[in-house]
């Protein structure tokens, strides 16, 4: 089947983590995450396998890292409360075993880790959809690009069709595709400097 042939080929890329997902529930067969620099390599591999470009788009994960950090902190706090309750309980029974002492430590590290360094930088997720005309195999290639400088190489050299998709992604998210022939606004007016699909976009 085409999927495992592609899976091996994409696996060869340095940073690619290839995960097979169930088409019935998710809609795509292969879920590949690569580093931004590897995107052109991935496109070339898929081009060699005869895939056609379906869509290129972005997702703005603003506030994701904070949510993760808060979650981690909440989990840590819950774990710590549970540990104190366990310690109080053993204290009541008068048993003096040391066993109870151990659980609180992991809670502290998680907590310490939680507030220690400031949460990782938010990112855009750029999603490439490829599909195959003959065999049914939809491959979704994802990359994460930091919000501060959303730069990644263009694949319009491999797929000319992606030229417009990338211009549209640039319109909506401000993603800068290096090496793109003409990154002027496609759907927005010529002088548009706003990016509507960013979560922090205020009309």
């Amino acid at each position, binding site marked *: 089947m085409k999927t495992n042939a592609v899976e091996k080929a994409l696996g060869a890329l340095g940073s690619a983590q290839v995960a097979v997902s169930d088409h019935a*529930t998710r*809609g795509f067969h292969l879920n590949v995450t690569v580093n931004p620099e590897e995107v052109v390599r991935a496109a070339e591999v898929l081009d060699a396998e005869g895939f056609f*470009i*379906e*869509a290129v788009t972005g997702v703005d994960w603003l506030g994701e890292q904070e949510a993760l950090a808060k979650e981690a902190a909440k989990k840590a706090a819950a774990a710590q409360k549970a540990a104190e309750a366990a310690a109080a309980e053993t204290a009541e029974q008068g048993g003096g075993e040391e066993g109870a002492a151990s659980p609180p430590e992991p809670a502290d590290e998680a907590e310490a880790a939680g507030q220690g360094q400031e949460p990782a930088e938010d990112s855009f997720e750029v*999603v490439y959809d490829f599909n195959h005309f003959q065999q049914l195999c939809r491959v979704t290639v994802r990359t994460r690009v930091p919000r501060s400088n959303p730069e990644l190489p263009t694949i319009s050299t491999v797929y*000319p069709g992606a030229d417009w998709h990338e211009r549209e992604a640039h319109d909506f998210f401000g993603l800068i595709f290096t090496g793109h022939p003409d990154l002027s606004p496609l759907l927005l007016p010529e002088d548009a400097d706003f990016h509507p699909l960013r979560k922090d976009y205020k009309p």
Partner: protein
Amino acid sequence: MSEWAADPSYETFVLNMGPQHPATHGALRVKLRMDGEYIVEAEPVLGYIHRMHEKMGENRTYLQFMPNTGRLDYLSALSYNHGYVSAVERAAGITVPERAEYLRVITVELNRISSHLLWVGAFVLDLGGFTPLLYAMDDREQILDLLERVTGSRLTYCYFRFGGLYNDVDDDFEAGARAIVKRMRDKLPMYHNLISKNIILRQRLEGVGPITGEMCRKYGATGPVARGSGIPYDVRRHEPYSVYPELDFDIPVYEQGDSMARYLVRMDEIEQSLRIIEQGLDKMPDGPVMAEKVPKIIKPPKGDYYFAVEAARGSFGVRLVSDGTNTPYRLKLRSPCFSNVSLFGEAARGMLLADAVAMFGSLDLVIPDIDR
């Protein structure tokens, strides 16, 4: 013929086809650098009818976004309803009763025939023949009347709901649909004699605007445009959804890749849709049209989902990123016409203006679907 147009001393002029032009069927502008009547370089300019549906998707609940799907490609709005509804059903894990799926397929195929009919009329109008447009509109009117009796609207439908349909069909829907199938079957030979076999039209279309399979692959062109260039890709067969696997119909594919091939693909598709409707009407079971316990507020679990449907113009895909709340986190609408028109720049190089208009018509573009 336009090699020597490359050196700057040779003077070419820029002709604006659009945004208000009879051949573009909507607000799409094509900047043509012309050398006499030959096109040196063509660049479609988009955005004249851009409404940012994807941002609307992010601040509306799942049900509230339903009317927007009918406004994308208003000629085959039911396919877009079907795509969006199925995507959310896949995300939320709702199963649709058999009867509802059959009714969805029948109304979508009726909508596909009405879209192809309007396209045939407008396409031959672009080539100068005025009369077939009126015959096509006359037949299309029957389909619109039938769908109006069922769904309540004629063009921008909002008939499907998550888990089924807004309401069941009335009892003379089946008789109406069968009458349409019979009427279309009698009328198709007339269209072929009047249009397909006409020598003037054949000379206008054969060999005009060749698109190779490789170009379709590089630009992601799907639907009749790809099937006209020898690529047997049809989402109904390739990625079966709804009840299409139980229906037996074949996919018309032509090898030549010129405007005539794309025209013949659409005409054959009308016949195939008639077959689907007939089989659908025969196999349609009774029963409920709405799944039982569909939650009032749809909150699909976190994660991203993709669902593709075969609209009249190609594969319409919905990429839904949900964060568990009642509004989508990100809603990407993959529109077929966007990719189909992106290959016009490369395909129209070196063509005559009249042939470029013929090829433009054969791509069957709906501009709101391109601009979203």
